[in-house]
C-alpha cells in the first residue's frame, strides 16, 4: 500500500477481470477498467446493474456484507487491494467514501470531523486539531455556514449541509480517492448544485468516483463515464461502455448506451 510503487501514475485504481459475488449469486462480472487520477469518473446505469457494488469494492466496503466475495484484481498503486496481507482498514483511510444518505454521527460538527483523524492515530495539539477541522470544512465549502456553531450536533444541519459535512469528514483523513455513492439523491436541486460545484473543486486534489442515477449530473461534472448494465441472462452487472463523458453521451459506441443516455429505457 505504499505510495512508492507507482508503476503507472496516470491511474488511481485499475480493476482486472473483477467478479463480485453475493453468496452464490454473481452480481458483477468481468469488469476491467482504469480510473484516472484527479478526474471525476461517473458510474451510471439502471438500478441493479452493480454500479454501487463496483464502487464499494474499491475500498472493500463489500467486506462488511456477509457472503460477499470479490475475485480478480483491484489495483491501487499497483497493489491488489484484495491480497490477503492488505488490511481493509488501511485501504479505507486512503480511499474514503461518501454515502447516499447523509450520515453524520450524532456528535458535534467539530467531533464529526475530528473522529477520522483521531481513530487513525492522529497526534497534535488542540490548536492543530482546530486548524485541521477548519481546513476540512473550508475544503467542503461548509466553513462559513458552521464556523459559529461547531459545537452543535451534526444532525442539526440541513440535508445538503449534512452531506457536505460528510465530505469534510472524508477529506479530514487526507485520502487520495473519494468514492461517492449517489451523494445527491436525497438532496434538493440547490444543495445538489452546491455538491457538484464542490466536486469540481475537489478534483484538483482528489480522485473522485461517483455513482449517480442522474444522467445530467454525470454529464455536468464527470470527465469519464462508465455505463453498467445487467445482463438479462445471468442477471450479473457488466461494464458496457467506458469512455470520456462527452463521447459516452454524444456519440456512444454501444447501442444500449445510446438508448440509456437518451432516456429510452432505464
Amino acid at each position: 500500500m505504499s505510495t512508492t510503487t507507482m508503476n503507472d501514475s496516470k491511474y488511481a485504481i485499475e480493476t482486472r477481470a473483477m467478479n463480485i459475488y453475493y453468496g452464490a449469486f454473481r452480481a458483477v462480472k468481468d469488469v476491467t477498467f482504469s480510473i484516472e487520477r484527479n478526474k471525476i469518473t461517473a458510474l451510471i446505469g439502471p438500478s441493479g446493474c452493480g454500479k454501487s457494488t463496483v464502487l464499494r469494492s474499491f475500498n472493500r466496503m463489500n467486506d462488511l456484507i456477509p457472503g460477499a466475495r470479490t475475485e480478480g484484481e483491484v489495483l491501487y498503486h499497483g497493489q491488489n487491494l484484495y491480497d490477503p496481507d492488505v488490511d481493509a482498514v488501511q485501504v479505507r483511510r486512503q480511499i474514503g467514501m461518501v454515502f447516499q444518505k447523509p450520515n453524520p454521527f450524532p456528535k458535534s460538527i467539530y467531533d464529526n470531523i475530528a473522529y477520522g483523524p483521531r481513530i487513525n492515530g492522529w497526534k497534535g495539539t488542540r490548536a492543530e486539531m482546530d486548524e485541521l477541522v477548519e481546513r476540512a470544512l473550508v475544503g467542503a465549502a461548509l466553513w462559513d455556514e458552521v464556523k459559529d456553531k461547531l459545537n452543535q450536533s451534526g444532525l442539526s444541519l440541513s440535508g445538503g449541509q449534512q452531506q457536505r459535512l460528510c465530505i469534510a469528514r472524508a477529506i479530514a483523513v487526507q485520502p487520495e480517492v473519494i468514492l461517492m455513492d449517489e451523494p445527491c439523491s436525497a438532496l434538493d436541486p440547490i444543495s445538489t448544485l452546491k455538491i457538484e460545484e464542490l466536486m469540481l473543486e475537489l478534483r484538483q486534489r482528489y480522485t473522485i468516483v461517483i455513482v449517480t442515477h442522474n444522467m445530467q449530473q454525470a454529464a455536468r461534472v464527470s470527465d469519464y463515464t462508465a455505463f453498467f448494465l445487467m445482463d438479462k441472462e445471468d442477471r450479473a452487472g457488466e461494464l458496457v461502455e467506458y469512455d470520456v463523458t462527452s463521447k459516452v453521451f454524444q456519440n456512444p459506441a454501444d447501442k444500449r448506451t445510446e438508448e440509456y443516455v437518451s432516456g429510452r429505457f432505464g
Partner: protein
Amino acid sequence: MSTESLRPERQSIGSLPEGEAARQNVSSRQRRGKIWQGILLACTIFGIIILLMLAYNIVNDAFGGIGVQYAVEEEDLTDGRPLEELSQAELIAILETNLRSRVLKNLERERPLAERSREELIDIINDEIIKPEVVAVYSLSEFLFDRPTIEAELRKSHPRAEIEFKSWLSWDFIVTPMSSNPVEAGIRTAILGTLYLLWLTMLISFPLGVGAAIYLEEYKNDKPFDERIPAGRWMNNAIQRSAGLIETNIYNLSGVPSIIYGILGLAIFVRALEQFTSGAVFGYADPTTANGRTILSAALTMSLLVLPVVIISSQEAIRAVPGSMRQASYGLGATKWQTVWKIVLPNAMPGILTGTILSISRAIGETAPLIVIGASTFIVTDPTSLFSKFTVLPLQIYNWTSRPQPEFRAIAAAGIIVLLVLLLSLNAAAILLRNYLRSKRVST
C-alpha cells in the same frame, strides 16, 4: 398491448356500491370501528380498575385504626398536661412516684436519671408506665366509615381501650430493624438487603450482558483464529456454533421459571462455591456464619436470572443503531473495535441502560429463588458486606403476610408501599437517564 381483446370472454369483475348503498356501506364500516374502539376502551378501563383496586387494598391495610389500651392514662400522670411540656425534674418525679424501687434502681445503675435527656425520660415513661398495647387493628375503611360498630366491638372486649389513627408506614418503620413485635418492627434490614442485592446484581450482570450482546451482534460472524490451520478452523467453528446455540436459546433462558435459577444458585453458588461466596477464601470469617447463603450468592443467582433479558435488550439496542453509522465509521478507516466503542455503544447506551434497569427492577421483586438459596426471613442485623446474611423486601413481606396476627398484615402492606416506591423510583431513574443521554447525544 391489447391482450384483453384476445380473450374470448370477459369475466365479471364484481361491483362496487354506488349512491345510497355506498353511504350505508361507509356508515356500517364506521360503526364497526366504533364498536372496536369501545372494546379497546373497556380493556383500558379494566386495567385502570385493577390498578385502583390494588392501590385501595394496600392503602386500606397500611393505614387505619388501632385499639390501644394504656396501663395508665397520660392525663392521670401529668394532670392533663402533655408529657412533652414537662421539665426534666417533673419527668423524674413522675418516674420516681410510679415505678417500683427495683426498676428505678436498675435504671439508675445503667445511667443516673438526672443525666438522661428529656426525650429518653419520656420514652421510659411511655414504655414502663403508660405501656400502650395494641389490642385491635382496623383497616382504613373500617376506621373511617364504620366507626360506631368497631367502637362498640372494642368496648365489649377491652373497655379501657381507645381507637386511634395509625399509619403503619412511617419513618420509624423505615429505619428500625425487624422485630417480633409487629408494632415495633421495621423494614430497614430488608431495604438495605435489597439495595445491596440490587447494586451487586447490576454490577455483575451489566458488563457480562452487554459484553455478550456486543459479541453476538457485532462479532458473531468473525473468525478470530487463522483459517489456514486445522486447529484454527476447528476453534472458529466451535465459537460460531456456541454463539449460535446461545443466540437461539436466549429467549428460552429468559423464560425459565425463576425458581429453577434458585435451585441452580443453591447448587453452584451456595454449595459448590461456598468457600468463595462465604468469603472464606478471602480470609473473611463471619461469626454469624452464613455458609454461602450470602448477598454475594444471591446477587450471582439474580444475575443469572436477569442475564438473558439484559442480553436481549442490549442486543436490541445495538441493533437499533443505524447501519449507516457503522458504515460511516468503517469508511473513515476505523477498526471494528473503534466502531463498536466510539459509535455503536454510545448510541446504544440509552436503550441498553433502560433495558438493564428495567430487567433488574423486575428482579428485585423476585422471591422464589432467594427462598431456595436460603435467604433469611428473620434477621435484625444490617448487612455489612458481600458475605453477610441478608433479607430483602419481598421476602420480608412474604414472611409477614404468612403470620396470623392482623398487625403483621398491616406492616406487610406498609412494606409493599416501600417496595413499590423503590421500584417506581428505579424505573423513573431509568427513564431520566435515558432522556438525559438522548438529549446529550443530539444537542452537543
